[in-house]
């Protein structure tokens, strides 16, 4: 188990490092002068010169690279040119809403998707099953932004039950602050719920046809115990694996959803910074969100190993 963890940790580090270097060169690849790109064509030569010195653009490339990598380690990522604010501080403020949104959506998606998938499989070919299959198939095809807008139209504008946009931190608003997250979570998780339902259904059907389920039945276990104890736990492993994949979709969904609902998270920060040509922020934010993604996937792997004795007891090549 320990070796498994260690090996898994060791793969993240070089990956992050290479990514950081790649981001650095991507920025250098921009056509034209980086300082000019940031300041726009109206900038005076003096302004450009000052910025160049501030950004260490007058230093040799390896120095700049070392500076950037060092910054990642120490957390000093420089200053945003648009806001005149340390990048790390901006990232930190933006990280919490995104994390909250993503994890809550994941939780919500897993609950609904797993539940629907299991019910669908148990009642295979029944009316309930058919309805669930149709709904999950359509859910998979719903674009995040469209659903977000439709939800705003229905619950925000027509019914007026929920705020159309905005965000409040838990510290300020308490439980009531969650009302800002309801629509975004629905918009983000729908597609993932569709996929999860479909996969859980398939996996559950597969598990229900396994010999050990028959063994469990032949012991005299009641139906619900066969399902919950023997079949479901095996399906749960699939859910854990899938949640890693779902994270990819959810983070993408967060970027779009935050922009629809004006939630001050990473996605909104990245998009507004791209529009403002605040490249340092873009570069750092993308790094952070990707690292977050890798880290959450790492957690998923740990949970997986914890659930499946075949991984933790080292007979599978993990």
């Amino acid at each position, binding site marked *: 188990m320990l070796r498994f963890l260690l090996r898994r940790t060791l793969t993240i580090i070089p990956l992050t490092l290479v990514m950081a270097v790649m981001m650095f060169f991507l920025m250098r690849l921009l056509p034209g002068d980086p300082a000019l790109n940031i300041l726009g064509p109206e900038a005076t030569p003096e302004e450009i010169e000052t910025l160049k010195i501030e950004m260490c653009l007058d230093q040799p490339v390896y120095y700049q690279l070392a500076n950037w990598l060092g910054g990642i380690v120490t957390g000093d990522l420089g200053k945003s040119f648009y806001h005149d604010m340390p990048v790390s501080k901006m990232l930190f403020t933006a990280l919490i809403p995104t994390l909250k949104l993503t994890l809550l959506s994941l939780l919500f998606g897993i609950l609904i998707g797993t539940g629907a998938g299991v019910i669908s499989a148990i009642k295979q070919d029944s009316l309930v099953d058919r309805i669930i299959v149709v709904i999950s198939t359509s859910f998979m*095809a719903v674009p995040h*932004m469209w659903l977000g*807008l439709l939800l705003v139209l229905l619950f925000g504008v027509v019914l007026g039950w929920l705020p159309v946009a905005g965000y409040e931190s838990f510290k300020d608003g308490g439980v009531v602050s969650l009302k800002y997250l309801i629509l975004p979570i629905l918009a983000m998780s729908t597609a993932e719920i569709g996929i999860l339902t479909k996969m859980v259904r398939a996996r559950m059907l597969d598990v229900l046809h396994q*010999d050990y389920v028959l063994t469990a039945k032949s012991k005299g276990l009641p139906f619900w115990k066969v399902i919950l104890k023997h079949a479901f736990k095996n399906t749960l492993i699939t859910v854990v694996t899938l949640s890693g994949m779902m994270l990819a979709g959810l983070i993408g969904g967060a970027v*779009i959803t935050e922009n629809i609902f004006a939630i001050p998270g990473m996605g909104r920060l*990245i*998009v507004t910074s791209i529009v403002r040509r605040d490249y340092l922020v*873009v570069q750092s934010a993308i790094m952070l969100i990707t690292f977050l993604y*890798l880290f959450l996937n790492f957690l998923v792997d740990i949970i997986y190993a914890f659930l499946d004795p075949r991984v933790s007891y080292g007979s599978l090549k993990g």
Partner: protein
Amino acid sequence: MNHAATHLEDMKTTEAKTVKKRRESGVKVLFRNPLAILSFLYLTGTGLMAVFAPWVAPYDPNYMDIDARFTAPGLQHWLGTDHLGRDVLSRMIHGARTTMGVSVAVVILSAFVGTSLGLISGFFRRADEIIMRVTDLLMAFPPLVGALAVMAFLGPGVENIVLALFLVMVPRVARITRGETLVLREMTFIKAAQMMKAGTGRIIFRHILPNAMSPLVVYFTLLFAGTIMAEAGLSFLGIGSPPEVPSWGIVLSEGRYYMRNAWWLTVMPGLAIFIAVLSCNLLGDGIRDVGDPRQYGRARK
């Protein structure tokens, strides 16, 4: 597989034998599935509309008729007009050009490059190391964020979207092809071919590729769906196709500010994306079922 299931499986094999004639023409089986036909028709229809957009569209997509702003869908403008009095239907028909065009380009490019890389990876150890490390790196980014990163540095533009989405999709295609190749390589008939000293090229093109094709084609339909979504998403965020080039995402994005009084600006383009993605998924399911003999043994109601 438990016993009753094995037994059922036996029966299904027998059934599969009796339907062998039907299975020989996969296309025929596919077209017995009404959802797959509808999906196929919708996608081809949209594709044709996109190709012949200038002739099909009732208006110039960028022609502004200020007097006709926010006209609700009706006889004059089937899908209404937007805040500048532009015909939504015409904008969407031209938008299909961008959205479908980008998707077709991305899928073809990543299918070609990804499959080649995957095959190479599955066959040559040394190349495998390098290709897999690169795909690891590219796949470390969540898909939309990866595309966002590329767009951030390239700026808006249709070619840039193609490049960005290609970089996102290609490692995934390569991975899947490699997986299929590695499985197929261990199969007896490939070993037999190798023993008979068939060349690597012959083995790849005559044996591996045709057998890997079926799961890959299914994956490509999903990829197509994903690309439509991603293009719409990027354009919606304002960092995809430039505003003067209509795309479904752009129409949706522009319409959202007028959602309160012009619902059609939000509903119509979203519906177009939704149905297109749904069609791809259903078509993919249909293709998958053709290759799956279990389909013929389903319980009868």
